[in-house]
């Protein structure tokens, strides 16, 4: 079954590139431009296998978005990767406390991105 990945980022360029990389590897990609939209997409689409989210977005940022997702038991086992250029320890901690599974730094190497996605959502 095709894996679904939700990508949340306020940069269209970033969404396009993520889509390109992920689709090229056979994933189905859902998109949202900020945390609120991300929640809307989840509400509508239900199951996703991985969530990749930026931190700095208007309307609802990544940290809040992740906290919200984690409040929903349906996504308990869904890995959430933060994709961001921020790299301070404090931000990492914040991300983790919000419930993030992992962290990827932008700019990403497509191969690395795929590897991390594969790593957190392997085919068992």
């Amino acid at each position, binding site marked *: 079954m095709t894996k679904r990945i939700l990508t949340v980022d306020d940069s*269209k360029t970033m969404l396009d590139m993520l889509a390109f990389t992920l689709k090229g590897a056979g994933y189905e990609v859902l998109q949202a431009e900020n945390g609120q939209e991300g929640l809307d997409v989840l509400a509508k689409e239900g199951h996703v296998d991985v969530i990749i989210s930026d931190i700095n977005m208007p309307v609802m940022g990544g940290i809040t978005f992740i906290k919200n997702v984690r409040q929903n038991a349906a996504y*308990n086992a869904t890995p959430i990767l933060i994709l961001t250029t921020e790299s301070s320890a404090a931000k990492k901690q914040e991300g983790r406390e919000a419930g993030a599974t992992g962290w990827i730094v932008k*700019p990403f190497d497509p191969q690395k991105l795929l590897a991390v996605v594969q790593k957190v959502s392997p085919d068992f």
Partner: protein
Amino acid sequence: MDELQQFKQTFFQECEELLGDLEGNLMSMESGDFDVETLHAAFRAIHSIKGGAGAFGFERLVNFAHTFETVLDLMREDKVPADEDNVAVMLRSGDVITDLVRAAQSEEDLEPGYETETAKELAVLAQAGGAEVDDMSGADDAGDDFDDEIDGLDFNPVPAGGDESGGGTDEAQGADLSKPMESFKIRFVPTTEMLQRANEPLLLIRELKQTGNLRVTCDLKALPQLGEMDANSAYLAWEFDLDTRQGREAIDDIFEFVEGDCDLKITNLSEEGAAAEASAEPEPVVEESAPVPTAPKEKPAEEPKAEQPPAAAPKPKPAAAPKEDAGGAPAKKAAPAASAIRVDVDKVDKLVNMVGELVITQAMLDMQSGMIPSDEYPELISGLEELAQHTRELQDSVMAIRAQPVKSVFARMPRLVREVAAKVNKKVTLKTVGENTEIDKTVIEQLGDPLTHMIRNAIDHGLEPPDEREAQGKPKEGIIVLSAEHRGGRILIEIKDDGRGINREKVLAKAIERGVVSEGAQLSDEEIDNLVFQPGFSTADEVTDLSGRGVGMDVVVRNIQNLGGRVNIRSTPGEGSTFSLTLPLTLAVLDGMVVRVGTETYVLPLANIIESLRPLAQDIHSVMGEGDVLKIRGEYIQLVYLHRHFRIPDGIANPSKGLVVIVETEGGSMVGLVVDEIVGQQQVVIKSLEENFGAIQGVAGATILGTGKVALILDVAGLKAMSDKERKGRSPKEIPASVPAAAIASSPQ
């Protein structure tokens, strides 16, 4: 690559937009007309540009953007002030980054060092703001911490059989063949929290395997019987024996994300004395019942008492005891959980609405119960009385949910004052009073702009420059007092300055010039003062940067009015001015006095009512060309005949045969409303007329009475305004209308 080109195009398009937004934000910062949202937006713009640029390898752009972004980040956290000089640096940086983007797009490089000087300025700011050193480097360096984690991955698929080849990790990036092979013993005990973050132990084990030679033992000691198992809990513990060249860092990186969510002990067997591990651990580790490790982690840190993570905590046996977070960062998890819940605003609104309906129904029951002979159903009646009490309490509680202290809005003001004062070279102190006054959330959100505007106004126009003040014997520093209080069922917010007051001649002259007021019109002082709220009004001789743009005051007023509030100004020349803003305390419910005029019923806000009386005929006087007034205690109060106003044919025309209800507007002026009789006092739920019909001057809303009939809620100030207009025959726009002028309804529903 065709797609790459397409992405680039998208990217540059996006950059255009972002740069446009950035420009706007920087301009706002320059004029001092900005708040933390502006900084957030500016940060996001650079952040996005940097992200995309990195993807395409635009090194110079990335590096510059990184420093720029760092400074913006510090600014929005108030670690670097957004003062004039710094904002100038921001503006220059904005220009530079625009040039860099253009260069990237056209693929023509700018001369080397083009951005160096500005970058240096940014670097200075960043360091002053305390940026971590590694933040200062370009994105590539910042990635190092994490690249290792990712580098630890080997991209050659390793068969799950876990063979000894170690996945050929020596080829993994960053691996150094000259590094020695080391042996580690790792004990790994995940907690339930780790699983909650969707971190899978299996995946971590796989990663470990890819760093070298791995042998795994699983400790099943804590695994309960199937029947007692909680599917969401963690019961397993593992021991790993790992031989790897990649060193301790690689292992740390693998566990980086889960460090705080598990018990982890890494021992480097190759090192003599294993100095890294501070504590002595009881040897037969396997005997401990996981996941309650009694052995402290190798990192020396405090052991906090068991902290439960918020809401998402499942029901594991309190085995999830002392865990610590990485780097000793105090877990903020526990704190808020007990004292607050996050609730959707929509849910609260729904609740408020439902309670409103409940109030209406209860009022109706109340009314019906009044018709039952009180001795026939005593319990029913007392039951209904109790119901009334409970409903009232329920209503108060629900309204209180939405109320928040004004502090959040007031908090922005000191900085605003500093910046504006600096800009116009005046000395100003801001005092705030009543920060904890609570106001409905929606109202608070709307308060920011009006307050900002009025404070700016006060500083820019109201206060005199220090020298002038000194000459007048005033202290050099002007004082602005910002206060909030509950008054008469409404919120009163005042901005009081001790400046020069309103120059009435100038204002009047300007008003006449603008045709807002006709020549020779007689206006009271208060009326002249309130002319400043007219659109396009500015008496600044030159348009100053800040508030003299002529756009603003009327917008401010309109925004407040949309909330059901009013703006008013009082001024004493030479001594200062006071802007008053009143807002309804609750947007939904009102204590009202129900009055009857002919066959129609109206509701007057109790808060506005001073008194009511049946006047003697001799106290009613007719003033030539002005209508009737009531003489009371030496004062003359305008009379407003509601039956005339609303064209009700059978209303009582003679005040001495009916009642006069004396009401006061927020501005303090009084009017006597002539009605037939007072029906009673009642709490009513306000239904918006504007939403469902349209704005009507003199009418604040509508409600459904206990009888089931609809009654209009009157707006006292609006009525007064209309009456004034009729009296003096001026055209509507000359009077500072407190409610947007609209056609008078010919007859109320």
